[in-house]
């Protein structure tokens, strides 16, 4: 998998509206495009700030209530900024049975944050998510774009260390 640049400037500034313009221009008058527009805006800005939602509503011809309604309905949309790495600990059935709760506890313990929170250095945001579909490797978590499987609480520290430095580290080999 291609490594995405993990530098701090991966997201656009909120006062730079060129991504919004570009995305809306591309979808034009396509029916039912609100969800993909919001998805791409979130990719560009890291989250959906109120100002961005207002711009989308204005420029693409939606009611603000409609945009906000969709953004708050789907789990994928975030209304708060996230850290450099989003950690998604899977809590699907297989992961639950295999001890996902202890994994989340351990990550929270190591980072000193609760679920949904971001570390003070803006490095990590911790989330619990529903099934990521790699049940056979339960319990799993995704850090940035990398999936880590067959986790044990004892191995969490080592994985997090890989991301704490300046460069992203290869996935995989830490599966125990």
């Amino acid at each position: 998998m291609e490594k995405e640049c993990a530098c701090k400037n991966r997201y656009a500034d909120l006062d730079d509206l060129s991504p919004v313009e570009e995305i809306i221009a591309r979808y034009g008058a396509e029916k039912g495009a609100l969800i993909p527009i919001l998805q791409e805006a979130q990719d560009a800005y890291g989250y959906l700030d109120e100002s961005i939602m207002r711009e989308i509503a204005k420029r693409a011809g939606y009611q603000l209530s409609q945009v906000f309604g969709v953004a708050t309905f789907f789990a994928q949309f975030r209304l708060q900024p996230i850290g450099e790495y989003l950690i998604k600990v899977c809590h699907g059935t297989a992961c639950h049975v295999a001890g996902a709760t202890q994994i989340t506890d351990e990550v929270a313990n190591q980072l000193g944050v609760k679920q949904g929170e971001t570390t003070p250095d803006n490095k990590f945001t911790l989330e619990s998510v529903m099934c990521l579909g790699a049940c056979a490797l339960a319990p799993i978590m995704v850090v940035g774009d990398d999936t880590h499987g067959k986790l044990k609480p004892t191995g969490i520290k080592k994985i997090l260390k890989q991301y704490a430095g300046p460069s992203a580290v290869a996935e995989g080999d830490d599966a125990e």
Partner: protein
Amino acid sequence: MSGNGDGHKYKVVLGYGTCGIAAGATAVKDALEEAVKGGDYDVDLDIAGCMGLCFTEPVVEIFDREGGSVIYGDITAKKVPQLLDEHVGKGQVIEDWVVKRSEDPNACEGDFLSNQLRIVLRNCGKINPESIEEYMEIGGYEAAKKALTSMTPEEVIDEVSASGIRGRGGAGFPTGTKWGFARKSPGDEKYLICNADEGDPGAFMDRSVLEGDPHTVLEGMILAGFAIGARQGYIYCRAEYPLALKRLDIAIEECHQKGFLGEGIFGTDWSFDVKVKKGAGAFVCGEETAMMASIEGQRGMPKPRPPFPANSGLWGKPTNINNVETFAAIPWIIYEGGEKYAAIGTEKSKGTKVFCLAGKVRRTGLAEVPMGYTLRQVIFDVGGGIAGGREFKAVQMGGPSGGCLPASKLDTQVDYDQITAAGAIIGSGGMIVADNRTCMVDLARYFLSFTQDESCGKCTPCRIGTKRMLEILERICEGKGEPEDIDKLQNLAADISAASLCALGGTAPNPVLTTLRYFKDEYEDHIFNHKCAAGSCPALITLSIDPETCTGCGACVKVCPTDAITGEKKEPHVIDEEACIRCKMCLSRCPSESIIAE
């Protein structure tokens, strides 16, 4: 890596799906490419989708020129040089790493595959999913060509009806009948949707098919579009499946280039195109009307039916929705004939079904078996029994809408009606095996917390009812259960089932009802004796250390947040019950498994 098949002595194929990548397949891929760069080995490299051997990923299969093959499991980058030296260089099989060899297909872990019958997964792990050429070499798009050039839409529907296939998304509605409704529905503009919003926790067969063989799904959709008269198809796929989305995009692009999608496909005057819609994370969107609302760009909330999608679906037009697995079986049915498919399975459930084996089973992965296999055959013959030599306790089938079946139901046949009669559902095919350390009350609580969280909030029985059920289950797990709680759960379950608008609410109580049916004693143990026999619910257990096996290594002392563990170095340690908060951190740290939870 490319599958040029240019006459090398060996062909090395790496399983490159999400499970493989998560287990380290990227490092193996890099090592393989690096090793063959110098031209020292007479070998051709290729990737394939998931073979379904998740328990032993990363997986490499080496083919020789005579068609024989050896599958190796648990391959790491470090093992690659030895693998190439021995097998490709010297022609020596490394016995210790073998999962399956074609000469003796049942040996090693080979019976995981040889006990299966693969129709939907026929190409998964065999062809490069990013190459339409490889799909076509093994007969891909022949069924679509045959149908579009020599069959009428009605004949296609008849063939699908004759196969007896029922919708693989969970509801089990006969596919041919469903297509017939959409065909007969008046209107020039119709839509076709592929449901790839695999939201059931514990199910990943759709992901594996999309990653491993996206063309077969597209071919199934081309056939369905032709049969019902839809010119536009949508694949509604979860955003959580980036690799599946990427391979779908590649496959659709390849189809445009070949003239299999777009205007006038297969040299006929029929036009059909497919667009991918990325889901945004809402379990309820697996429900047909909610999914269509989401495709239209609205909040994904279900609508009452009728009108059914076949009459008024996407943008008010006749719409037909099928699941990934259903579409993946269609090309085989059209090519081989419906009768051949109908010859497999039981009287009312035809063909094969893909199950995702996960949980405490020894061999986790994808298992496609003929309908009519018993649960015992799936879990023990294919899955290899329970991991760690523990005792089978239950199998959870059908995700949050399904149920848990105990050991006494292991001889139930995999068949829509028999599984439903036993108290679970086939659903989308998740099979999570639980051993004696899984608490059934906690499992029911887990599913209720899922459905409660995913309830869209539109109708009251689901929105409020699941919340009340969850509160009761939470207090039982915390040791605060009340004697009348079991009756309350049953009453709430009946009301929610009867009065909810869609299947999410209608089936939400099922995990509670089946655990009450088969494991009522565990509920009672929690409520009346304040005991969790599985050693799972923190409030109802005590943790202690087995002095016989404790080595006094001190690993537990370091992680205990309340300093409840003490002991001399190299001497058995003890846990202070008063100070212990039962977080179980020590349990997962102990190298000698000396911590006892009961």
